[in-house]
């Protein structure tokens, strides 16, 4: 009797200590250090335009964001800054088919974990180049993906060359169109 009470007491003590320790997960270090890949990413995100008219570029940026279906969230024109976001579908035929086959074969519920929707955030900065002769435009994209259960399944920076290329192609066109007053 005495022994078993001691055992329970000891067990609850260890349990309490464990509870206390779980709360102490630490923050990783070095996440504000420049990585070697940052130069490469910078090249992906930056284009220069042969004009010093920042206002014209910024209007074109807002225009191309609207062309791509984004809504503007925030801006500070004096700093040449615009932030925008867009909700989009994130369903992938391959993923859903794969999950369906697994569900049928093993009776699991992988379909609920398939991606359903996403929000893409875009942030654009325009500024004059160092020699004050050109305007530099830098864009960065991020996305948050939700699954069928409504849980966040993925958060990531977008580093896809094609997406950046598409944005800058659109921007070049918008600058041209706006110069022609179209």
């Amino acid at each position, binding site marked *: 009797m*005495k022994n078993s*009470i*001691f055992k329970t*007491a000891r067990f*609850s*003590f260890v349990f*309490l200590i464990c*509870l206390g320790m779980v709360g102490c997960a630490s*923050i*990783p*270090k*070095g*996440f*504000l*250090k*420049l990585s070697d890949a*940052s130069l490469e*990413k*910078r090249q992906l*995100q930056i284009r220069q335009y042969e004009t010093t008219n920042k206002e014209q570029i910024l209007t074109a940026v807002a225009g191309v964001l609207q062309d791509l279906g984004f809504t503007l*969230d*925030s801006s*500070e024109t*004096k*700093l*040449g*800054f615009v*932030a925008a976001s867009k909700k989009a579908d994130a369903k992938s035929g391959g993923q859903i088919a794969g999950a369906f086959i697994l569900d049928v074969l093993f009776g699991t519920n992988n379909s609920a974990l398939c991606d359903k929707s996403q929000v893409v*955030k*875009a*942030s654009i*900065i325009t*500024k004059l180049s160092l020699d004050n002769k050109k305007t530099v435009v*830098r864009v*960065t*994209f*991020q996305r948050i993906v939700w699954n069928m259960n409504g849980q966040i399944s993925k*958060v*990531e*920076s977008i580093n896809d060359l094609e997406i950046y290329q598409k944005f800058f192609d659109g921007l070049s066109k918008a600058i041209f169109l706006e110069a022609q007053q179209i």
Partner: protein
Amino acid sequence: MKKLTKFCGIIGVLFFIIVLFGCATTARKAFQTTESQVKLRSMQTRAFDTTDKHKMMQTVISTMQDLEFVIDKADLMLGSISGTKFLGYAVVTMTVTVRPRGKKQLLVRANAQHGVKSVEDAETYQDFFTALEKSLFLTAQQVD
């Protein structure tokens, strides 16, 4: 047997204290810091020998972008810039403020949050200021 009663008593009291703490502090937890106000300010703030606020803010923005932050908000008058970075499944948010200090210097203060925790580690902030120095070509000075 006496020993046993004592032991159980201590456990009981400990458990009670933990439960009580749990009730009282969930709102207060949001206002808790582990470091003192002075120490926090000193690790989060640096002074730079320039008065060009506009250029400083643009450099802070490009440094944050180099560090893979997406800028969410910026305000020239307030001198504030906020951004978000995704680190695996964790979300890092950071606000940087730029304000004048005397007539010859600017103060830059950064404060970051990792998930639900405030970053209170001097080394992490030093990494940020090292990156900022590189793009500014200026030396960051420790503020007392």
